[in-house]
Protein backbone atom coordinates (compact mmCIF):
# COMPACT_ATOMS: atom_id res chain seq x y z
CA UNK A 1 0.00 0.00 0.00
CA UNK A 2 2.81 2.34 0.96
CA UNK A 3 5.05 1.14 -1.82
CA UNK A 4 4.65 4.18 -4.04
CA UNK A 5 6.01 6.50 -1.39
CA UNK A 6 9.64 5.43 -1.49
CA UNK A 7 9.97 5.69 -5.30
CA UNK A 8 8.18 9.05 -5.08
CA UNK A 9 10.65 10.20 -2.44
CA UNK A 10 13.59 9.06 -4.58
CA UNK A 11 12.16 10.91 -7.57
CA UNK A 12 11.80 14.07 -5.45
CA UNK A 13 15.39 13.83 -4.27
CA UNK A 14 16.65 13.16 -7.80
CA UNK A 15 14.61 16.12 -9.06
CA UNK A 16 16.15 18.33 -6.39
CA UNK A 17 19.64 17.20 -7.34
CA UNK A 18 18.83 17.65 -11.05
CA UNK A 19 17.98 21.32 -10.57
CA UNK A 20 21.67 21.82 -9.82
CA UNK A 21 20.75 24.33 -7.13
CA UNK A 22 23.30 24.02 -4.34
CA UNK A 23 20.93 25.53 -1.78
CA UNK A 24 18.18 22.96 -2.43
CA UNK A 25 20.66 20.13 -2.28
CA UNK A 26 22.16 21.27 1.02
CA UNK A 27 18.63 21.58 2.43
CA UNK A 28 17.86 18.03 1.30
CA UNK A 29 21.06 16.83 2.99
CA UNK A 30 20.06 18.52 6.25
CA UNK A 31 16.55 17.06 6.02
CA UNK A 32 17.95 13.57 5.47
CA UNK A 33 20.32 13.95 8.42
CA UNK A 34 17.60 15.18 10.79
CA UNK A 35 15.07 12.61 9.61
CA UNK A 36 17.15 9.85 11.17
CA UNK A 37 16.97 11.05 14.80
CA UNK A 38 13.39 12.26 14.29
CA UNK A 39 12.24 8.83 13.13
CA UNK A 40 14.19 7.29 16.00
CA UNK A 41 12.36 9.54 18.44
CA UNK A 42 9.03 8.72 16.78
CA UNK A 43 9.62 5.03 17.44
CA UNK A 44 10.04 5.52 21.18
CA UNK A 45 7.89 8.62 21.84
CA UNK A 46 5.23 8.11 19.18
CA UNK A 47 4.70 4.39 18.79
CA UNK A 48 5.73 3.25 22.27
CA UNK A 49 4.45 6.33 24.13
CA UNK A 50 7.64 6.86 26.17
CA UNK A 51 8.68 10.49 26.03
CA UNK A 52 12.35 11.35 25.67
CA UNK A 53 13.83 14.82 26.00
CA UNK A 54 17.39 13.60 25.57
CA UNK A 55 17.57 12.41 22.00
CA UNK A 56 19.92 15.18 20.93
CA UNK A 57 22.45 13.50 23.22
CA UNK A 58 22.35 10.27 21.21
CA UNK A 59 22.76 12.29 18.03
CA UNK A 60 25.69 14.16 19.56
CA UNK A 61 27.30 11.03 20.95
CA UNK A 62 26.99 9.38 17.54
CA UNK A 63 28.65 12.37 15.91
CA UNK A 64 31.48 12.71 18.44
CA UNK A 65 31.84 8.93 18.60
CA UNK A 66 32.32 8.64 14.84
CA UNK A 67 34.83 11.48 14.79
CA UNK A 68 36.82 10.17 17.76
CA UNK A 69 36.81 6.52 16.68
CA UNK A 70 38.00 7.63 13.27
CA UNK A 71 40.77 9.68 14.88
CA UNK A 72 41.89 7.10 17.44
CA UNK A 73 41.61 3.85 15.48
CA UNK A 74 42.34 5.27 12.06
CA UNK A 75 39.48 3.28 10.55
CA UNK A 76 38.04 4.61 7.28
CA UNK A 77 35.11 7.02 7.42
CA UNK A 78 31.95 4.97 7.22
CA UNK A 79 33.27 2.15 9.38
CA UNK A 80 33.67 4.59 12.26
CA UNK A 81 30.01 5.58 11.86
CA UNK A 82 29.00 1.93 12.17
CA UNK A 83 31.21 1.39 15.23
CA UNK A 84 30.01 4.58 16.88
CA UNK A 85 26.37 3.68 16.17
CA UNK A 86 26.90 0.26 17.74
CA UNK A 87 28.39 1.79 20.88
CA UNK A 88 25.60 4.39 21.15
CA UNK A 89 22.95 1.70 20.60
CA UNK A 90 24.40 -0.28 23.49
CA UNK A 91 24.45 2.89 25.58
CA UNK A 92 20.83 3.63 24.66
CA UNK A 93 19.87 0.13 25.77
CA UNK A 94 21.61 0.72 29.09
CA UNK A 95 19.97 4.13 29.50
CA UNK A 96 16.64 2.45 28.79
CA UNK A 97 17.43 -0.09 31.48
CA UNK A 98 17.87 2.83 33.89
CA UNK A 99 15.12 5.25 32.94
CA UNK A 100 12.25 2.95 32.09
CA UNK A 101 11.75 2.30 35.78
CA UNK A 102 10.05 5.69 35.55
CA UNK A 103 7.11 7.01 33.61
CA UNK A 104 5.38 10.27 32.71
CA UNK A 105 6.93 13.44 34.07
CA UNK A 106 9.68 11.55 35.84
CA UNK A 107 10.73 9.84 32.63
CA UNK A 108 10.71 13.20 30.84
CA UNK A 109 12.90 14.77 33.52
CA UNK A 110 15.27 11.80 33.68
CA UNK A 111 15.85 11.84 29.92
CA UNK A 112 16.24 15.62 30.04
CA UNK A 113 18.84 15.18 32.79
CA UNK A 114 20.66 12.60 30.65
CA UNK A 115 20.70 15.04 27.74
CA UNK A 116 22.10 17.85 29.89
CA UNK A 117 24.75 15.60 31.49
CA UNK A 118 25.98 14.57 28.03
CA UNK A 119 25.98 18.22 26.94
CA UNK A 120 28.00 19.26 30.02
CA UNK A 121 30.48 16.43 29.41
CA UNK A 122 30.92 17.45 25.76
CA UNK A 123 31.73 20.98 26.88
CA UNK A 124 33.92 20.08 29.85
CA UNK A 125 36.01 17.14 28.63
CA UNK A 126 38.47 19.38 26.83
CA UNK A 127 41.07 16.66 26.35
CA UNK A 128 38.70 14.38 24.47
CA UNK A 129 36.05 16.50 22.79
CA UNK A 130 37.95 19.75 22.42
CA UNK A 131 35.50 21.46 24.79
CA UNK A 132 33.55 24.44 23.49
CA UNK A 133 36.01 24.84 20.61
CA UNK A 134 35.05 21.45 19.28
CA UNK A 135 36.72 18.97 16.97
CA UNK A 136 37.98 19.99 13.58
CA UNK A 137 39.35 18.25 10.54
CA UNK A 138 36.93 15.32 10.34
CA UNK A 139 37.52 13.62 7.00
CA UNK A 140 34.59 13.47 4.58
CA UNK A 141 33.09 10.11 3.68
CA UNK A 142 34.77 8.43 0.77
CA UNK A 143 33.70 5.78 -1.71
CA UNK A 144 36.39 3.62 -3.37
CA UNK A 145 39.01 6.16 -2.37
CA UNK A 146 37.10 9.12 -3.83
CA UNK A 147 36.15 11.59 -1.10
CA UNK A 148 32.49 12.66 -1.20
CA UNK A 149 33.18 16.24 -0.33
CA UNK A 150 30.37 18.06 -2.16
CA UNK A 151 26.71 18.19 -1.18
CA UNK A 152 25.80 16.53 -4.49
CA UNK A 153 28.04 13.56 -3.76
CA UNK A 154 26.94 13.06 -0.17
CA UNK A 155 23.22 13.44 -0.91
CA UNK A 156 22.60 9.91 -2.25
CA UNK A 157 24.63 8.32 0.56
CA UNK A 158 22.69 10.10 3.30
CA UNK A 159 19.32 9.41 1.74
CA UNK A 160 20.24 5.77 1.15
CA UNK A 161 20.76 5.42 4.90
CA UNK A 162 17.62 7.45 5.68
CA UNK A 163 15.43 5.41 3.32
CA UNK A 164 16.86 2.20 4.76
CA UNK A 165 15.95 3.52 8.21
CA UNK A 166 12.43 4.37 7.04
CA UNK A 167 11.98 0.85 5.66
CA UNK A 168 13.35 -0.70 8.86
CA UNK A 169 11.10 1.50 10.99
CA UNK A 170 8.04 0.55 8.94
CA UNK A 171 8.88 -3.14 9.15
CA UNK A 172 9.45 -2.85 12.89
CA UNK A 173 6.13 -1.10 13.37
CA UNK A 174 4.30 -3.70 11.27
CA UNK A 175 5.92 -6.61 13.11
CA UNK A 176 4.54 -8.29 16.26
CA UNK A 177 6.93 -6.09 18.23
CA UNK A 178 5.26 -3.10 16.61
CA UNK A 179 1.91 -4.30 17.90
CA UNK A 180 3.42 -4.71 21.35
CA UNK A 181 4.79 -1.15 21.11
CA UNK A 182 1.40 0.29 20.34
CA UNK A 183 -0.22 -1.82 23.04
CA UNK A 184 2.29 -0.40 25.57
CA UNK A 185 1.53 3.10 24.39
CA UNK A 186 -2.22 2.54 24.84
CA UNK A 187 -2.20 0.72 28.15
CA UNK A 188 0.84 -0.75 29.79
CA UNK A 189 -0.98 -2.96 32.27
CA UNK A 190 -3.08 -4.54 29.54
CA UNK A 191 -0.03 -5.04 27.35
CA UNK A 192 1.71 -6.82 30.20
CA UNK A 193 -1.34 -8.91 31.02
CA UNK A 194 -1.37 -10.50 27.57
CA UNK A 195 2.22 -11.59 27.94
CA UNK A 196 4.34 -8.74 26.57
CA UNK A 197 7.65 -8.19 28.32
CA UNK A 198 7.02 -4.44 28.53
CA UNK A 199 10.42 -3.41 29.84
CA UNK A 200 12.41 -5.39 27.32
CA UNK A 201 10.31 -4.03 24.45
CA UNK A 202 10.90 -0.48 25.68
CA UNK A 203 14.64 -1.10 25.98
CA UNK A 204 14.78 -2.66 22.54
CA UNK A 205 13.00 0.32 20.98
CA UNK A 206 15.23 2.73 22.88
CA UNK A 207 18.20 0.89 21.41
CA UNK A 208 16.87 1.08 17.84
CA UNK A 209 16.02 4.72 18.45
CA UNK A 210 19.53 5.47 19.73
CA UNK A 211 20.97 3.60 16.75
CA UNK A 212 19.04 5.81 14.29
CA UNK A 213 20.16 8.95 16.12
CA UNK A 214 23.79 7.84 16.16
CA UNK A 215 23.75 7.00 12.44
CA UNK A 216 22.40 10.47 11.75
CA UNK A 217 25.02 11.99 14.05
CA UNK A 218 27.89 10.06 12.47
CA UNK A 219 26.87 11.09 8.97
CA UNK A 220 26.49 14.67 10.20
CA UNK A 221 30.02 14.67 11.62
CA UNK A 222 31.53 13.54 8.31
CA UNK A 223 29.32 15.87 6.28
CA UNK A 224 29.97 19.01 8.29
CA UNK A 225 33.62 18.21 9.11
CA UNK A 226 33.54 20.16 12.38
CA UNK A 227 31.83 19.40 15.70
CA UNK A 228 31.00 21.64 18.64
CA UNK A 229 28.63 20.90 21.53
CA UNK A 230 26.17 23.65 20.54
CA UNK A 231 23.96 21.81 18.03
CA UNK A 232 23.36 18.89 20.42
CA UNK A 233 21.76 20.81 23.28
CA UNK A 234 18.29 20.52 24.78
CA UNK A 235 16.99 22.86 22.10
CA UNK A 236 17.68 20.22 19.48
CA UNK A 237 15.89 17.57 21.56
CA UNK A 238 12.87 19.86 21.68
CA UNK A 239 13.12 20.51 17.95
CA UNK A 240 13.09 16.77 17.33
CA UNK A 241 10.03 16.47 19.54
CA UNK A 242 8.41 19.26 17.53
CA UNK A 243 9.10 17.42 14.28
CA UNK A 244 7.55 14.27 15.72
CA UNK A 245 4.54 16.22 17.03
CA UNK A 246 3.97 17.92 13.67
CA UNK A 247 4.14 14.50 12.05
CA UNK A 248 1.50 13.03 14.32
CA UNK A 249 3.78 11.02 16.68
CA UNK A 250 3.09 7.47 15.51
CA UNK A 251 3.59 7.95 11.79
CA UNK A 252 6.95 7.47 10.07
CA UNK A 253 6.03 9.35 6.89
CA UNK A 254 4.28 12.05 8.89
CA UNK A 255 7.48 12.58 10.85
CA UNK A 256 9.42 12.89 7.59
CA UNK A 257 6.93 15.59 6.62
CA UNK A 258 7.50 17.18 10.04
CA UNK A 259 11.26 17.27 9.45
CA UNK A 260 10.80 18.88 6.03
CA UNK A 261 8.25 21.35 7.35
CA UNK A 262 10.33 22.45 10.33
CA UNK A 263 13.51 22.71 8.27
CA UNK A 264 11.78 24.91 5.69
CA UNK A 265 10.10 27.05 8.38
CA UNK A 266 13.46 27.45 10.08
CA UNK A 267 15.04 28.59 6.81
CA UNK A 268 12.18 30.98 6.08
CA UNK A 269 12.36 32.57 9.54
CA UNK A 270 16.15 32.71 9.77
CA UNK A 271 16.43 36.39 8.76
CA UNK A 272 13.95 37.38 11.49
CA UNK A 273 16.17 36.39 14.42
CA UNK A 274 14.44 35.16 17.56
CA UNK A 275 11.05 34.88 15.89
CA UNK A 276 11.88 31.34 14.78
CA UNK A 277 11.96 30.17 18.43
CA UNK A 278 8.53 31.73 19.03
CA UNK A 279 7.22 30.03 15.90
CA UNK A 280 8.62 26.64 17.01
CA UNK A 281 7.06 26.95 20.45
CA UNK A 282 3.71 28.13 19.13
CA UNK A 283 3.66 25.34 16.54
CA UNK A 284 4.43 22.80 19.25
CA UNK A 285 1.57 24.04 21.44
CA UNK A 286 -0.92 24.37 18.60
CA UNK A 287 -0.13 21.03 16.99
CA UNK A 288 -0.36 19.15 20.29
CA UNK A 289 -3.62 20.81 21.33
CA UNK A 290 -5.46 21.01 18.03
CA UNK A 291 -3.80 18.44 15.77
CA UNK A 292 -2.97 15.43 17.94
CA UNK A 293 -2.67 13.30 14.79
CA UNK A 294 -0.22 15.64 13.14
CA UNK A 295 -0.43 18.88 11.23
CA UNK A 296 -1.38 17.32 7.88
CA UNK A 297 -4.27 15.27 9.27
CA UNK A 298 -5.36 18.13 11.51
CA UNK A 299 -5.61 20.49 8.55
CA UNK A 300 -7.29 17.80 6.45
CA UNK A 301 -9.92 17.15 9.11
CA UNK A 302 -10.50 20.90 9.56
CA UNK A 303 -10.92 21.29 5.80
CA UNK A 304 -13.21 18.25 5.75
CA UNK A 305 -15.34 19.69 8.51
CA UNK A 306 -15.50 23.08 6.78
CA UNK A 307 -16.61 21.42 3.52
CA UNK A 308 -19.12 19.30 5.41
CA UNK A 309 -20.69 22.36 7.06
CA UNK A 310 -20.77 24.28 3.80
CA UNK A 311 -22.51 21.42 1.95
CA UNK A 312 -24.89 20.99 4.88
CA UNK A 313 -25.74 24.68 4.72
CA UNK A 314 -26.37 24.46 1.02
CA UNK A 315 -28.75 21.54 1.51
CA UNK A 316 -30.80 23.27 4.20
Amino acid sequence: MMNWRIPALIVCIAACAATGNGYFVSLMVIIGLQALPAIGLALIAGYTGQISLGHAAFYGLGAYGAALIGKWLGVPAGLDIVLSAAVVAALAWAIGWLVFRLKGHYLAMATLAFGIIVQVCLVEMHGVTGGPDGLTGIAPLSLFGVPLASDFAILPVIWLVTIAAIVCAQNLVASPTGLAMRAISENEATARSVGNDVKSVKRLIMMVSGLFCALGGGLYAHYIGYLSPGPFDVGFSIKLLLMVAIGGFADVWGVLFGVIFITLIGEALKPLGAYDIVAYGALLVISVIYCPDGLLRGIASLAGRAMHTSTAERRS
Partner: protein
Amino acid sequence: MSDALQFLISGLVVGSIYGLIGVGFTCIYNVTGIVNFAQGDFAMVGAMSAIAIQAAGAPLWLAILLAIVITCAVALLIERSAIRPVRGDVMRGIIVTIGVGVVLQGLAAIVWGTDAQPMPAFSGEQLIHVFGATVMPQSLWVLGTAIVAMVALDLLFRRTYLGQMFRACAMNPFAARLVGMKVETMSLVGFVMSGALGAIAGIVVAPIALTQYDTGLQLGIKGFVACIVGGFGGPIGAAVGGLVLGVLEAFSAGYVSSGYKNAIAFALLLGFLLFRPGGLLGEYERVRG
Protein backbone atom coordinates in the same frame (compact mmCIF):
# COMPACT_ATOMS: atom_id res chain seq x y z
CA MET B 1 37.06 26.36 57.21
CA SER B 2 36.03 29.81 56.03
CA ASP B 3 35.97 28.35 52.50
CA ALA B 4 33.49 25.73 53.61
CA LEU B 5 31.38 28.35 55.37
CA GLN B 6 31.41 30.50 52.24
CA PHE B 7 30.27 27.55 50.12
CA LEU B 8 27.61 26.68 52.67
CA ILE B 9 26.19 30.22 52.62
CA SER B 10 26.16 30.55 48.86
CA GLY B 11 24.67 27.06 48.64
CA LEU B 12 21.86 28.00 51.01
CA VAL B 13 21.13 31.17 49.04
CA VAL B 14 21.01 29.39 45.68
CA GLY B 15 19.15 26.54 47.30
CA SER B 16 16.35 28.77 48.54
CA ILE B 17 15.84 29.98 44.98
CA TYR B 18 15.60 26.36 43.81
CA GLY B 19 13.14 25.76 46.61
CA LEU B 20 10.97 28.71 45.58
CA ILE B 21 10.90 27.51 41.97
CA GLY B 22 10.24 23.99 43.15
CA VAL B 23 7.29 24.97 45.26
CA GLY B 24 5.83 26.67 42.19
CA PHE B 25 5.88 23.25 40.52
CA THR B 26 3.92 21.71 43.35
CA CYS B 27 1.26 24.46 43.26
CA ILE B 28 0.42 23.45 39.70
CA TYR B 29 1.08 19.74 39.99
CA ASN B 30 -1.08 19.29 43.05
CA VAL B 31 -4.14 20.65 41.30
CA THR B 32 -3.73 19.76 37.64
CA GLY B 33 -1.43 16.75 37.66
CA ILE B 34 0.73 18.60 35.15
CA VAL B 35 4.42 19.34 35.68
CA ASN B 36 4.91 22.80 34.27
CA PHE B 37 8.16 22.74 32.29
CA ALA B 38 7.82 26.51 31.80
CA GLN B 39 8.12 27.12 35.57
CA GLY B 40 11.63 28.53 35.33
CA ASP B 41 10.53 30.87 32.57
CA PHE B 42 8.09 32.49 35.02
CA ALA B 43 11.15 33.48 37.05
CA MET B 44 12.81 34.83 33.93
CA VAL B 45 9.71 36.83 32.92
CA GLY B 46 9.41 38.24 36.45
CA ALA B 47 13.03 39.28 36.67
CA MET B 48 13.19 40.73 33.15
CA SER B 49 10.03 42.79 33.59
CA ALA B 50 11.20 44.08 36.98
CA ILE B 51 14.53 45.10 35.44
CA ALA B 52 12.81 46.77 32.50
CA ILE B 53 10.28 48.63 34.67
CA GLN B 54 12.97 49.81 37.06
CA ALA B 55 15.13 50.93 34.16
CA ALA B 56 12.15 52.97 32.95
CA GLY B 57 12.37 54.99 36.17
CA ALA B 58 9.86 53.35 38.50
CA PRO B 59 10.78 52.86 42.18
CA LEU B 60 11.89 49.38 43.23
CA TRP B 61 8.72 48.37 45.10
CA LEU B 62 6.50 49.39 42.18
CA ALA B 63 8.73 47.53 39.71
CA ILE B 64 8.55 44.35 41.81
CA LEU B 65 4.80 44.63 42.24
CA LEU B 66 4.16 45.24 38.54
CA ALA B 67 6.52 42.43 37.55
CA ILE B 68 4.66 39.99 39.79
CA VAL B 69 1.33 41.14 38.34
CA ILE B 70 2.65 40.74 34.79
CA THR B 71 3.93 37.24 35.51
CA CYS B 72 0.61 36.26 37.11
CA ALA B 73 -1.19 37.53 34.03
CA VAL B 74 1.11 35.47 31.82
CA ALA B 75 0.46 32.40 33.98
CA LEU B 76 -3.28 33.01 33.79
CA LEU B 77 -3.16 33.35 30.03
CA ILE B 78 -1.15 30.13 29.73
CA GLU B 79 -3.57 28.20 31.91
CA ARG B 80 -6.55 29.35 29.90
CA SER B 81 -5.10 28.95 26.41
CA ALA B 82 -2.73 26.00 26.62
CA ILE B 83 -3.24 23.92 29.76
CA ARG B 84 -7.01 23.65 29.91
CA PRO B 85 -7.37 21.89 26.52
CA VAL B 86 -4.95 19.09 27.43
CA ARG B 87 -5.97 18.51 31.03
CA GLY B 88 -5.21 15.04 32.31
CA ASP B 89 -3.01 13.90 29.44
CA VAL B 90 0.50 13.61 30.85
CA MET B 91 2.51 13.40 27.64
CA ARG B 92 0.62 16.20 25.89
CA GLY B 93 0.82 18.28 29.07
CA ILE B 94 4.60 17.92 29.12
CA ILE B 95 4.95 18.85 25.46
CA VAL B 96 2.56 21.80 25.70
CA THR B 97 4.33 23.31 28.69
CA ILE B 98 7.68 22.84 26.93
CA GLY B 99 6.23 24.67 23.94
CA VAL B 100 4.94 27.45 26.17
CA GLY B 101 8.40 27.78 27.71
CA VAL B 102 9.98 28.05 24.27
CA VAL B 103 7.47 30.75 23.28
CA LEU B 104 8.20 32.72 26.48
CA GLN B 105 11.95 32.48 25.80
CA GLY B 106 11.53 33.64 22.23
CA LEU B 107 9.27 36.53 23.22
CA ALA B 108 11.72 37.56 25.95
CA ALA B 109 14.55 37.54 23.42
CA ILE B 110 12.48 39.76 21.12
CA VAL B 111 11.23 42.16 23.80
CA TRP B 112 14.33 42.44 26.01
CA GLY B 113 17.12 41.29 23.71
CA THR B 114 19.50 38.40 24.22
CA ASP B 115 21.99 40.15 26.53
CA ALA B 116 22.29 39.15 30.17
CA GLN B 117 20.89 41.96 32.31
CA PRO B 118 21.86 43.02 35.83
CA MET B 119 19.55 44.37 38.51
CA PRO B 120 20.70 46.71 41.31
CA ALA B 121 20.69 45.13 44.79
CA PHE B 122 17.72 45.98 47.01
CA SER B 123 19.78 47.42 49.86
CA GLY B 124 23.27 48.31 48.75
CA GLU B 125 26.38 46.32 47.99
CA GLN B 126 28.07 46.67 51.42
CA LEU B 127 29.43 43.18 52.20
CA ILE B 128 28.74 41.65 55.60
CA HIS B 129 31.53 39.61 57.22
CA VAL B 130 30.59 36.53 59.22
CA PHE B 131 33.35 34.29 60.66
CA GLY B 132 35.66 34.97 57.72
CA ALA B 133 32.98 34.49 55.09
CA THR B 134 31.38 37.36 53.22
CA VAL B 135 27.67 37.72 52.62
CA MET B 136 25.97 40.07 50.21
CA PRO B 137 22.99 41.92 51.69
CA GLN B 138 20.96 40.60 48.76
CA SER B 139 21.62 37.04 50.00
CA LEU B 140 19.76 37.92 53.18
CA TRP B 141 16.87 39.17 51.08
CA VAL B 142 16.81 35.86 49.22
CA LEU B 143 16.91 33.76 52.38
CA GLY B 144 14.32 35.92 54.10
CA THR B 145 11.94 35.87 51.15
CA ALA B 146 12.26 32.13 50.82
CA ILE B 147 11.58 31.51 54.50
CA VAL B 148 8.55 33.83 54.56
CA ALA B 149 7.14 32.35 51.35
CA MET B 150 7.60 28.75 52.48
CA VAL B 151 6.07 29.27 55.90
CA ALA B 152 3.18 31.23 54.44
CA LEU B 153 2.51 28.53 51.85
CA ASP B 154 2.74 25.76 54.38
CA LEU B 155 0.22 27.56 56.58
CA LEU B 156 -1.96 28.26 53.56
CA PHE B 157 -2.03 24.62 52.54
CA ARG B 158 -2.60 23.22 56.01
CA ARG B 159 -4.62 25.82 57.88
CA THR B 160 -6.87 27.71 55.46
CA TYR B 161 -10.04 26.73 53.66
CA LEU B 162 -8.42 27.54 50.29
CA GLY B 163 -5.54 25.25 51.14
CA GLN B 164 -7.88 22.44 52.06
CA MET B 165 -9.69 22.85 48.75
CA PHE B 166 -6.32 22.67 47.00
CA ARG B 167 -5.43 19.45 48.71
CA ALA B 168 -8.85 17.99 48.05
CA CYS B 169 -8.53 18.70 44.33
CA ALA B 170 -5.10 17.12 44.36
CA MET B 171 -6.17 13.96 46.16
CA ASN B 172 -9.30 13.29 44.18
CA PRO B 173 -10.49 15.84 41.63
CA PHE B 174 -13.65 13.86 40.93
CA ALA B 175 -14.75 13.74 44.55
CA ALA B 176 -13.82 17.39 44.98
CA ARG B 177 -16.08 18.22 42.07
CA LEU B 178 -18.88 16.14 43.58
CA VAL B 179 -18.88 18.16 46.76
CA GLY B 180 -19.15 21.36 44.74
CA MET B 181 -15.60 22.61 44.32
CA LYS B 182 -14.71 24.25 41.06
CA VAL B 183 -11.60 22.31 40.05
CA GLU B 184 -11.06 24.60 37.03
CA THR B 185 -10.96 27.66 39.28
CA MET B 186 -8.52 25.95 41.60
CA SER B 187 -6.29 25.15 38.65
CA LEU B 188 -6.35 28.80 37.66
CA VAL B 189 -5.50 29.83 41.22
CA GLY B 190 -2.68 27.28 41.24
CA PHE B 191 -1.19 28.71 38.08
CA VAL B 192 -1.42 32.29 39.29
CA MET B 193 0.18 31.35 42.60
CA SER B 194 3.01 29.54 40.90
CA GLY B 195 3.47 32.48 38.53
CA ALA B 196 3.75 34.81 41.51
CA LEU B 197 6.20 32.49 43.29
CA GLY B 198 8.28 32.14 40.16
CA ALA B 199 8.36 35.90 39.66
CA ILE B 200 9.38 36.49 43.28
CA ALA B 201 12.16 33.92 42.99
CA GLY B 202 13.40 35.46 39.75
CA ILE B 203 13.32 39.00 41.12
CA VAL B 204 15.10 38.40 44.45
CA VAL B 205 17.88 36.45 42.74
CA ALA B 206 18.23 38.91 39.85
CA PRO B 207 20.74 41.19 41.66
CA ILE B 208 22.98 38.17 42.41
CA ALA B 209 22.83 36.36 39.08
CA LEU B 210 22.43 37.97 35.69
CA THR B 211 19.12 37.26 33.98
CA GLN B 212 18.95 36.28 30.34
CA TYR B 213 16.13 35.14 28.07
CA ASP B 214 17.16 31.50 28.43
CA THR B 215 18.00 31.27 32.13
CA GLY B 216 14.53 29.86 32.78
CA LEU B 217 15.13 26.32 31.58
CA GLN B 218 18.08 25.65 33.88
CA LEU B 219 16.30 27.25 36.85
CA GLY B 220 13.15 25.25 36.14
CA ILE B 221 14.97 21.94 36.00
CA LYS B 222 16.87 22.74 39.18
CA GLY B 223 13.56 23.54 40.87
CA PHE B 224 12.20 20.22 39.72
CA VAL B 225 15.30 18.47 41.09
CA ALA B 226 14.62 20.21 44.40
CA CYS B 227 11.10 18.77 44.39
CA ILE B 228 12.34 15.29 43.61
CA VAL B 229 15.06 15.40 46.25
CA GLY B 230 12.74 16.72 48.92
CA GLY B 231 9.69 14.74 47.95
CA PHE B 232 6.98 15.98 45.60
CA GLY B 233 4.09 17.49 47.46
CA GLY B 234 4.52 20.35 49.86
CA PRO B 235 6.51 23.54 50.39
CA ILE B 236 8.68 22.00 53.11
CA GLY B 237 9.80 19.16 50.86
CA ALA B 238 10.70 21.57 48.08
CA ALA B 239 12.54 23.83 50.52
CA VAL B 240 14.57 20.96 51.97
CA GLY B 241 15.32 19.60 48.51
CA GLY B 242 16.34 23.02 47.26
CA LEU B 243 18.72 23.59 50.15
CA VAL B 244 20.29 20.13 49.77
CA LEU B 245 20.76 20.67 46.04
CA GLY B 246 22.08 24.21 46.47
CA VAL B 247 24.63 23.25 49.12
CA LEU B 248 25.76 20.16 47.21
CA GLU B 249 26.18 22.24 44.07
CA ALA B 250 28.13 24.96 45.86
CA PHE B 251 30.50 22.42 47.44
CA SER B 252 31.03 20.50 44.23
CA ALA B 253 31.65 23.73 42.35
CA GLY B 254 34.10 24.81 45.04
CA TYR B 255 36.00 21.56 45.53
CA VAL B 256 35.59 19.68 42.24
CA SER B 257 34.95 21.87 39.22
CA SER B 258 32.44 24.58 38.44
CA GLY B 259 31.96 23.26 34.92
CA TYR B 260 30.67 19.92 36.15
CA LYS B 261 28.36 21.62 38.68
CA ASN B 262 25.30 21.16 36.47
CA ALA B 263 26.12 17.57 35.64
CA ILE B 264 26.32 16.83 39.37
CA ALA B 265 22.85 18.29 39.95
CA PHE B 266 21.41 16.10 37.23
CA ALA B 267 23.27 13.02 38.38
CA LEU B 268 21.64 13.67 41.75
CA LEU B 269 18.28 13.88 39.99
CA LEU B 270 18.85 10.58 38.21
CA GLY B 271 20.02 8.95 41.43
CA PHE B 272 16.97 10.06 43.37
CA LEU B 273 14.55 9.23 40.57
CA LEU B 274 15.94 5.74 40.27
CA PHE B 275 16.63 4.77 43.85
CA ARG B 276 14.48 6.94 46.05
CA PRO B 277 11.68 8.40 43.93
CA GLY B 278 9.77 9.47 47.03
CA GLY B 279 12.49 11.95 47.89
CA LEU B 280 13.96 12.49 51.35
CA LEU B 281 10.67 13.25 53.04
CA GLY B 282 7.86 11.50 51.23
CA GLU B 283 6.78 8.20 49.82
CA TYR B 284 5.39 8.41 46.34
CA GLU B 285 4.35 5.20 44.63
CA ARG B 286 2.95 6.59 41.41
CA VAL B 287 6.42 7.35 40.10
CA ARG B 288 7.38 3.88 39.07
CA GLY B 289 6.58 2.59 35.60
